[in-house]
């Protein structure tokens, strides 16, 4: 492990700057903006999972008093090429509806009640088709087609269309020889259901577009720059004609990286000549926004009697929903990443079904595939009578291991995570009577991408950081801390805010565990720009050369040996004299961050099952993760606990339940059961810090990895508690009872 660095700000736990506003209700979320003359938009949604639209007639709705605008697919620009073809059809159906809840038309009226009444006046003539609901059956060459124009994306175009949109495959070594070396083989099929991110705030926006076609959109989003780009493309507008402002956001987890309402609200606003507010109900969120892929994964793993993995073979089918784009590639790239395996094959399919188009959900694709592999490892550990952590350590990837997706890992913290778990008091204590202890590993690549930041020095020397990433997980605090550390000033002297698309440089979405890494790097560079300018200002003030000034502890000081009778100049001194030395001081940086560091985790938990009711109790849960460096440890722990809670929910209760017609039967939190506080113990966390050498403070990114391991950790715990291998999630009471009755 790298040497610890003695930081002054990094690693502290200041109170979050947005906390008071959020707990008092002052914070303004997507639905909180009210504008003069604002009206209300509503969406008419398909009652069928698969149907041809023969006609949509909005004329009766438009004729109603108080109704200002009505649109259907034909009112949007026709888009038949480029990267938003599917998105255009998803925000408003054109010729076919492809899932129950698919948007068919929309209205804007004086009140929400009038808008709802207007929806009832819209006439739609459907030709109902058979829905495609089972991912494996959908792959059959004779299956009903979700999209008659979908051909599997292969180097040579297939002769016939198919529901398989994409195929991914990774191969290494010789799989047959690998299995020949094995003393035994574990082989099973595992299922993970479609599940929703469960963010608390439904999608909402207010669009205000004037008669010239220019305007602004206020919305809850993980990336207002990318929302602007998508909306402009979908409406055929110039990017510069739209300003997007990110509201506070009540959770996203990947689900708010996609536009649904914003282009519709903007078009309605332009037609109505008034601001239009749109917000989804919880039911609409479930029916019409992107959940994670449901998957079927078949795993075959060969082991030697000392625990060495000799070969691994995986086949996985990912539900894409109505349009291509399941996270099958990250799923297959992640599955073996924690381990050194010489012989493997992994193949995955991106399959269209008549369900909502999937969206990213924390570490997209990895929880599903890694659930299968980590369960197979647990079964092997039981067979070998080997500690499951020892089995993982025996095969663990380390610095120099060739990742399954190609490159050799630089310094990584997987072994350090295993060691920390092995020594944790929750692991060294006996398993509670009647419970099972489950262990699993997690992994995510982490990413960089583009970020910008500006750092303005106020007249009194206080610091304002402006960045373009919506603050979902505490980025304003972490940006301010990194700025304070770089500048050598106190955290309380720094404020951070999220700029709109007209007031700061481009930033990719807040997602992929990239913001603290990439935008943090931009903030550090912008601060270094400020320091360089401050040194120049001090040099001018003192009448010395620029290179005779150093920056220490937030002050300009003369370099050793400089013969000048001067006192150090603080940021406040320099800012106060800025008018004489060159004007206001502003640092800027824009970058495409490279060098994101992979993050590994180990989770373990003790779970107890009531055999009569099938109810599962989580007695304790411990999450160990390599963060590289925790800028604000409380936020890192919060990410780990939040990911664990979501993963436990996915493992134990959460699932989309469709009827035979493709209608979601549980579109609300009463029937789609996410964990509540009383369902969970305190989730214990251990932050391992193996610094990422590519980041100034060693950051790796922490948001994705925490959801990966809980699925298998819970599954393994329940299987051990019951002494029976359960392969299909969720491990809900009815499913457990059914498994026990088999």
């Amino acid at each position, binding site marked *: 492990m790298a040497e610890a660095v003695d930081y002054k700000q990094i690693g502290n736990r200041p109170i979050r700057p947005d906390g008071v506003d959020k707990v008092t209700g002052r914070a303004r979320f997507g639905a909180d903006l009210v504008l003069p003359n604002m009206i209300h938009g509503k969406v008419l949604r398909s009652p069928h999972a698969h149907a041809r639209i023969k006609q949509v007639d909005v004329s009766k709705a438009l004729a109603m008093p108080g109704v200002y605008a009505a649109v259907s697919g034909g009112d949007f620009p026709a888009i038949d090429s480029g990267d938003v073809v599917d998105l255009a059809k998803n925000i408003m159906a054109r010729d076919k509806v492809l899932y129950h809840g698919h948007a068919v038309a929309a209205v804007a009226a004086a009140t929400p009640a009038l808008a709802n009444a207007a929806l009832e006046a819209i006439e739609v003539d459907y030709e109902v088709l058979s829905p495609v609901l089972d991912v494996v059956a959908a792959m059959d060459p004779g299956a009903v087609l979700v999209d008659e124009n979908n051909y599997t994306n292969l180097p040579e175009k297939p002769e016939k269309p198919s529901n398989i949109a994409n195929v991914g495959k990774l191969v290494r070594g010789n799989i047959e020889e690998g299995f020949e070396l094995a003393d035994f083989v574990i082989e099973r099929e595992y299922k993970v259901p479609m599940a929703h991110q469960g963010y608390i705030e439904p999608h909402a926006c207010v669009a205000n577009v004037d008669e010239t076609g220019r305007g602004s959109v206020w919305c809850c989003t993980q990336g207002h720059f990318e929302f602007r780009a998508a909306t402009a493309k979908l409406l055929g507008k110039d990017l510069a004609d739209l300003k997007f402002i990110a509201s506070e956001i009540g959770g996203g987890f990947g689900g708010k990286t996609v536009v649904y309402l914003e282009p519709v609200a903007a078009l309605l606003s332009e037609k109505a000549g008034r601001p239009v507010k749109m917000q989804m109900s919880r039911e609409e969120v479930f029916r019409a926004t992107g959940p994670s892929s449901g998957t079927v994964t078949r795993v075959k793993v060969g082991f030697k009697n000392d625990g060495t993995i000799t070969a691994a073979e995986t086949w996985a089918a990912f539900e894409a929903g109505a349009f291509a784009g399941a996270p099958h590639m990250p799923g297959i790239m992640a599955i073996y990443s924690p381990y050194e395996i010489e012989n493997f094959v992994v193949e995955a399919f991106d399959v269209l079904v008549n369900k909502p188009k999937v969206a990213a959900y924390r570490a*997209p694709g990895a929880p599903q595939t890694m659930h299968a592999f980590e369960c197979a490892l647990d079964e092997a550990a039981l067979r070998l009578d080997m500690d499951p952590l020892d089995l993982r350590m025996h095969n663990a990837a380390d610095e120099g291991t060739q990742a399954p*997706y190609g490159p050799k890992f630089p310094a990584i913290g997987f072994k350090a995570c295993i060691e920390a778990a092995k020594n944790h008091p929750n692991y060294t204590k006996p398993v509670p009577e009647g419970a099972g202890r489950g262990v699993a590993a997690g992994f995510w690549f982490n990413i960089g*991408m583009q970020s910008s930041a500006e750092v303005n020095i106020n007249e009194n020397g206080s610091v304002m950081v402006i960045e373009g990433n919506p603050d979902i997980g505490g980025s304003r605090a972490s940006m301010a801390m990194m700025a304070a550390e770089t500048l050598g000033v106190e955290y309380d002297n720094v404020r951070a805010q999220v700029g709109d698309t007209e007031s700061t440089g481009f930033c990719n979405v807040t997602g992929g565990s990239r913001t603290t890494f990439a935008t943090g790097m931009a903030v550090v560079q912008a601060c270094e720009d400020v320091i360089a300018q401050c040194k120049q200002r001090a040099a001018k003030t003192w009448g010395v050369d620029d290179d005779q000034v150093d920056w220490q502890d937030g002050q300009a000081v003369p370099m050793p040996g400089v013969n000048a009778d001067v006192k150090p100049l603080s940021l406040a001194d320099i800012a106060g004299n800025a008018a004489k030395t060159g004007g206001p001081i502003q640092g800027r940086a824009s970058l495409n961050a490279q060098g994101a560091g992979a993050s590994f985790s180990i989770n373990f938990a003790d779970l107890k099952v009531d055999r009569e009711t099938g109810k599962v109790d989580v007695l304790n849960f411990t999450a160990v993760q390599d963060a590289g460096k925790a800028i604000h440890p409380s936020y890192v722990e919060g990410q780990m606990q939040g990911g664990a809670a979501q993963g436990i929910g996915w493992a134990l209760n959460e699932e989309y339940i469709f009827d035979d017609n493709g209608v979601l039967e549980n579109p609300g939190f009463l029937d789609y059961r996410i964990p509540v506080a009383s369902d969970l113990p305190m989730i214990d966390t251990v932050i391992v810090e193996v610094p990422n050498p590519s980041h100034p403070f060693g950051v790796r990114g922490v948001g994705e990895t925490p959801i990966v391991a809980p699925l298998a950790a819970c599954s393994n715990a329940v299987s051990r508690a019951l002494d029976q291998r359960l392969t299909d999630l969720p491990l809900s009471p009815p499913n457990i009872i059914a498994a026990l009755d088999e």
Partner: protein
Amino acid sequence: MAKIIMPDSFLAVTQGEHEIQVQVENYRELVTELTRKWPDLADLLSNTAVAIDGEIFQDPFLEPIGDQSEVYFMARIEGG
């Protein structure tokens, strides 16, 4: 010469050639070299991330490639 390893998804275009050695100074030169040999690779390369000596670049352009470099192409990663 740098070692360039093709992913499975490229093999249909490269006629099964899994690994080649090339003398280039940066990623742009590598793309020029590969598309000269296999013109159909251009589309695949435009949507691909690359790992050069273990460091992953989502939007590669002028990254240096040395004589002893190992280059892997891989799917772009996004996230939630």
